[in-house]
């Protein structure tokens, strides 16, 4: 399919993304069943929630279905592009697989394999070729490696295994999986896409990672008082504004200095009353929207749109949590990235 047609299609789908009025309506609901009832009336979620009974649905299942909708949309769009599920266009499946593997690692290290089995979204088994359910039977890191032997995640996980065998530290495994995800997307983009498209993907990933690194650095500095070197060691090695600038950010004295530093970059955000996560998500959304509006690349448009879908799902889940814990819904509404 021509890239123009796909970009046009993605822009059309993007036109149906949730608007502030719809979020406002959601935050006007005071129970999860009421919210579910409302979501069922929206075009975006009506078919996904068709068989859900609002009064009995489990909150966790509702959240899973909202995330599943993003995956279904992704599958529909990549099918439209006739791109198959290999190479660059499998990026979103890879992203969700990476999230599941990280979740598995966390629970595996804590000895909670059964909890992982319960928490892994059932629909992932349809979309992923990873033996996600079988992983729960693994009792050692070697067994995990054996289970993943024929998958692309074997190499990065094997590489970090200590010389004498056994399991590497959890944070190392998590970082290896994240780095592998971004590297594999970038390398397939370089192989399969034009230079201009590759640069756009690189920019999108750089933006995403910069904001992830900034959020983590802010938290590490504010709550754990980690040094610049320690923060840098834990950060992901990709950036849009440049590694040097990010290093300068990590070296700042306190969280307020970090904010002042960021205000001098493209990630400036003028909403001081918000949490760091909310501000960064809003910034990410604004930058990604700009890409969708101007790009002529199907790959960049799809990548950007899937980032928007994730933000949208996170917004709804934030509202669900707000309703569940009886938080001030006007505050919740103000924190949403719209």
């Amino acid at each position: 399919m021509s890239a123009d047609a796909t970009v046009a299609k993605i822009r059309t789908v993007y036109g149906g993304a949730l608007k502030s009025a719809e979020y406002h309506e959601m935050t006007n609901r005071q129970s999860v069943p009421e919210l579910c009832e409302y979501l069922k009336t929206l075009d975006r979620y009506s078919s996904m929630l068709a068989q859900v009974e609002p009064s009995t649905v489990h909150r966790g299942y509702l959240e899973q279905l909202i995330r599943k909708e993003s995956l279904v949309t992704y599958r529909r769009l990549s099918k439209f592009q006739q791109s198959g599920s290999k190479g660059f266009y499998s990026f979103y499946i890879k992203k969700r697989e990476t999230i599941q593997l990280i979740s598995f690692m966390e629970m595996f290290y804590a000895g909670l394999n059964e909890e992982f089995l319960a928490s892994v979204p059932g629909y992932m088994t349809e979309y992923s070729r990873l033996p996600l359910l079988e992983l729960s039977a693994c009792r050692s890191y070697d067994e995990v490696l054996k289970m993943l032997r024929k998958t692309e995640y074997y190499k990065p996980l094997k590489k970090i295994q200590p010389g004498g065998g056994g399991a590497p530290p959890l944070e190392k495994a998590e970082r290896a999986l994240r780095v592998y995800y971004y590297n594999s997307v970038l390398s397939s983009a370089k192989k399969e896409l034009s230079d201009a498209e590759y640069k756009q993907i690189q920019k999108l990933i750089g933006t995403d990672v910069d904001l992830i690194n900034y959020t983590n650095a802010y938290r590490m500095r504010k709550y754990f008082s980690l040094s610049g070197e320690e923060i840098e060691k834990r950060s992901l090695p990709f950036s849009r504004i440049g590694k040097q600038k990010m290093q300068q950010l990590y070296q700042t004295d306190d969280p307020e200095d970090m904010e002042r530093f960021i205000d001098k970059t493209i990630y400036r955000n003028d909403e001081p009353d918000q949490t760091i996560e909310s501000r960064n998500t809003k910034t990410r959304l604004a930058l990604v929207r700009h890409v969708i509006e101007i790009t002529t690349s199907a790959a960049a448009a799809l990548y950007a749109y899937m980032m928007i879908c994730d933000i949208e799902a996170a917004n709804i889940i934030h509202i669900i949590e707000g309703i569940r814990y009886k938080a001030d819904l006007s505050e919740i509404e103000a924190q949403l990235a719209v």
Partner: protein
Amino acid sequence: MATEKMELVNINGRLDDLDKAIGAILKSKSFHIEEGFSHSATGYRQLSEKNPYTTLLKRFTVLATGLGTDTQGGDEDKCTLVTPEEFESLYAKISENYDRLDTKRAELDKDIALRSEASLQTSHLKGLNEDISRLFTLEYTSVRFGRLPSDNAKKLKYFERHFFFFPFDDDGAYTYGMYLCPKSEKEETDEIFKTLFFERTRIPDFVKGSALKAYSDLQSEIAEDKKDLELTESQIHELMEKYRSELVHACAKLKYLKGAYALRKQAGVLKDKFLIKGFIPAKNRKELEQAFGGLTEIELTFLPADCDSWLTPPTVLKNSFLTRPFRMLVGMYGLPVYGGFDPTGLVAVTYSIMFGIMFGDLGQGFLVWLLGLFLGRKNKDLGGMMTRCGFFSMVFGTLYGSVFGIEDMLDPMYESIGISQLPVRAFESTNFILFTAVGIGIFLIVLSMMINIVTSFKRKDIESAVFGCNGICGLIFYASIIFAVVATVMLDMKVMSAPFVIFLIVIPLICIFCRVPFTLAVKYKKWKLSEHDDNMTFGGFFVENFFEMFEFLLSYVSNTMSFLRVGGFVMSHAGMMLVVMTLMDGMSKVGQPIVFVIGNLFVMAMEGMIVAIQIIRLEFYEIFSRFYVSGGKEYIPVTPELVNED
């Protein structure tokens, strides 16, 4: 054609009176607020406080949604409540009753859903002739009925636990069934199924006997619950009817108070004093003073609009009734800077006349005029533009003798007043039409240059006024070339003498070429090739200006020729209508009126749109680009309506 005169207003007072000041500002409806803590107000800081009305408004909106009413259409003046505490007590009064009914409604909803599920489950068990109640009295085994997402049912075989799951049915999304487990492991198994989003169906204790009997018992129970639910819904509706107006007006008032409170962030605060800065049109000064009439403790200071260098005065276009609708086009290009030249009047005249020339048809013009009147009810500017354009279309249509594409319909009328031949016939006066179009173009370009000279002198921009391609030198050059071409080609006069060429063509060209150094010489009495680049070499200067000169010269020609389209559309209109008439001739008597109407509508819609766009192009590129300095700030007065919007 200037912009409205503005005044800068500083409002000072004690912090306790800030809300009163904001109330008065909103009452005046003409105050464009600025940040009172900007650089020019040293020491003043922004207020950092939580808006108490935000949470209240959300709670009221949630309550209204729950009661089944929306919050639109309220009138804040009808609500006497002011403080957050007063609103709290109203909220408590309504929600006290509502919460009880809502809880009952939710319970009934849940009950109905559970019983419906149980009924569904038992419907799947209809083949089970065993007494269901026996399943719940097993000594060592626990039984649970329910459903879980089909995706999750796949996971069950991976759990190394002591349970059996018996699926009864699968609808694609959910798998219905029951699980059995040892009583001693009931809690753990329940927990596992809970994490798999198992929705348990409670088979009521009274359900005894076969599945069939249980099914019918549940059906009657559901019917009873539904009756109760209906009653509860009607009680909620009654409650809503009772409090609706109070609730809706309270929401409107809260919206207003929330917006008004948000304006506090615009004020600068120093200890217990506040400062609000803003602009008003000078003519509204009395209204503002009246709004602050009773507030003697608040001081208003009126200053010239441009006396604070940190603040840019907003632009208000000053237009008469006839030209006002065309401000929409000026706004699209960008507002003029405060005190700059407002081209709305010029646009109104040139746009209407050019539209009339290009779309001249008495009948179609009349329809455009009628459509303008109709649209004017919803969009004043668009409707106003259309009525004016329609009027000129009628005027020129009369001159062309064209009515709905019939080019000779007005001939008898002209003959009766002694005019045997109309001066303008599209296909008979081609040259005349095209030359006139270019003539109009030349006139408009010269006029634009003259406006540029005047406005540039006002701005003290010597380069643009004297040496620029649209300044005095550009005007002399352009006018001389036009004069020379007309005189030589059309009037057979020999004007290209040496003094004419040297003084009116070469010298102005040299001035345009050297406009930067000449301007710097006039301004600073110093010879420099560039204002900002001290290292500019003569070579660099020459190459840069050579290409710019080339572009200037090309644009004089292309801009003038661009107006040919004005004449082109006169002929294209007649041509398109000729096609309609030819098609009509080939039709039967029944088909002819249909083709006539559809053809006219098609030509009107298509050509009307193209002509409208082409004139915008001419206005923006050929006229505005010669003199217009945009970049003005929009005037947005804070009004209760504006505050209510957010």
